């Protein structure tokens, strides 16, 4: 039996109004019919190019943005139907880590205050707070003397640790991380990845990690969702995606990762052109203008997600003929 999803989303849709000078306001489709679920203890990765709606999805799942249509369910109940008390509980149990460790910390709060604020709000007695603070700080590898300093005294890697510590202070069930390591140097990146892996075990977290770096997702995730222009094109376990992907976009993304294919002679798939504007989404399969396999049906009909193997699904008309 499949474990019960702790958080799930059904048919999420989000559009933003964009006003440019000289144009009447237009609608930018950030998310279109996105459904997903996270089982307890699972790590889900969200990948895609910039502008594909990854971050919007993360914010909606964390309850920080309201979708225009569709619902997020927490333990089976839609967020909009949670009582005030339950909503507070959900917010406490769902924590987020942001990409930019510079702008996500209050520059005027000492580290200790930033990290222990969730403890204070949870109503923990002051005496216990101190002990808990020290425990969390040492768990993410921050030294004790960091507590009384301000964010500007720390490097990017250290700040990301502070961000993780702050999220963990609320003892969350779900951790949503938006590009947690992409602004960091390689050696620091590995340190933060290790902390995330360790915390997942120690706190039995359910994690959703947004990243454009497929190699990092492959390393930490149980399942990866590939997004393109606001919708999901493929979803599956990393080992399978890297071995037999079922969507030409996934194929191109994996082929574009530098350094994976040094021995093979030439790169076969190179995507031409840029991501089309989310202001005018192509008809039919939204990937068709960049797809080298596109045929007539791709231009007119939106492909449905089809499950090919356990937990491995893709939305492509030609998946069967292309990938067997």
């Amino acid at each position, binding site marked *: 039996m499949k474990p019960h999803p702790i958080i799930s989303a059904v048919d999420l849709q989000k559009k933003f109004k964009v006003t440019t000078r000289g144009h009447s306001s237009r609608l930018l489709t950030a998310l279109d019919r996105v459904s997903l679920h996270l089982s307890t203890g699972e790590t889900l990765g969200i990948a895609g190019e910039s502008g594909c709606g990854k971050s919007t999805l993360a914010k909606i799942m964390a309850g920080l943005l309201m979708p225009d249509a569709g619902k997020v369910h927490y333990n089976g109940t839609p967020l909009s139907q949670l009582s005030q008390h339950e909503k507070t509980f959900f917010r406490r149990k769902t924590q987020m880590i942001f990409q930019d460790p510079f702008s996500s910390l209050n520059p005027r709060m000492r580290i200790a205050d930033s990290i222990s604020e969730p403890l204070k709000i949870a109503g923990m007695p002051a005496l216990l707070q101190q002990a808990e603070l020290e425990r969390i700080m040492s768990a993410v590898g921050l030294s004790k003397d960091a507590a009384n300093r301000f964010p500007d005294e720390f490097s990017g890697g*250290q700040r990301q640790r502070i961000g993780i510590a702050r999220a963990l202070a609320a003892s969350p069930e779900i951790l949503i991380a938006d590009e947690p390591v992409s602004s960091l*140097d390689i050696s620091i990146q590995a340190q933060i990845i290790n902390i995330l892996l360790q915390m997942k075990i120690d706190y039995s977290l359910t994690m959703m990690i947004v990243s454009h770096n497929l190699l990092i997702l492959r390393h930490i995730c149980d399942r990866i969702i590939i997004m393109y222009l606001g919708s999901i094109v493929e979803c599956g376990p990393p080992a399978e995606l890297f071995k037999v992907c079922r969507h030409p976009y996934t194929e191109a993304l994996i082929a574009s990762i530098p*350094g994976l294919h040094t021995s093979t002679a030439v790169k076969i798939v190179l995507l031409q052109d840029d991501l089309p504007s989310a202001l005018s989404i192509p008809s039919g399969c939204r990937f068709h203008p960049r797809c080298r396999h596109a045929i007539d049906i791709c231009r007119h009909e939106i492909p449905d997600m089809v499950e090919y193997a356990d937990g491995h699904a893709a939305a492509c008309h030609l998946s069967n003929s292309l990938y067997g």
Partner: protein
Amino acid sequence: MTELLSISNLHVSFPTYEGTFNAVRGISLSLSTGSVLALVGESGSGKTVTALSIMRLVPPPGLITSGEIVFEGQHLLNIPEVSLRSIRGRRISMVFQEPMTSLNPVLRIADQLCEPLILHLGLSRSDAQEQGIKLLTNVGIPSADDRMRDYPHQLSGGMRQRVMIAMALACRPSLLVADEPTTALDVTIQAQILELLDSQRRASGLSILLITHDLGIVAERADHTAVMYAGQVVESAPTATLLSTPRHPYTQALLASLPQYAEPGKPLPTLPGQLNIRTASAGGCSFAERCPIATFECRTETQYLREIRPLHIIRCWKCS
């Protein structure tokens, strides 16, 4: 292959309130015609300062205190500023990381692209315009004549980086310094840009000094690679050798910490701490405080570069 650029024993320092900060401490590099030399390292390791030194563009108060840079037989650090102008943008050009901030936001693409053509090659305005359209087409920009009339903000990141490359290649330079040219871009666009640089190299014998922190890019594109740490080259070798048999503990640690070589879900091998340039440049081996095999001598004895096999040099006395 002939040597196009050679940098020897370059030192660059920045005076600060807390004393002199030595950003580059005795770098020596050499690049031959038509090849790609990669400079790898973490932020603060001195990669960008090294690149800027080549064109004597180190921002004040930074100062090149000693060293020698020879490009096509000319000593770049000794020639007068005026003669340098005929080299910058003409013989050596540069592509920066951030394509948004390196283009002038209030000038049309045409104005920026034609400037080097008019200035260096003496073309007329209309010839330059025509040549500009050709350049944009060459770097894969569709409907180039329309794009010439655009302002930078009207283009996407990938397109802006293409424009930067078109500008850099406008005068057919012999050396292109590319400072993290694809860091701000998506992988699919990154692959296009790298392929574009490579095709230019094949077509015109362009040499590229590629600065990056992405070892994947290095593996794919560079002939020779130098790894920098705290303002020094710690290891340098032909790329294939460096990646398959790294000898310096820092290079080894960098490669080991990449997720592509690790077993999924397992902790990645990491280096403790982070690059602290002040303590690193205090004396002894700059990597000693993070090094897994450091001994007492490492903290006190200065390390010198030595060749352990042809073309493979390292700055560590412990590795044989």
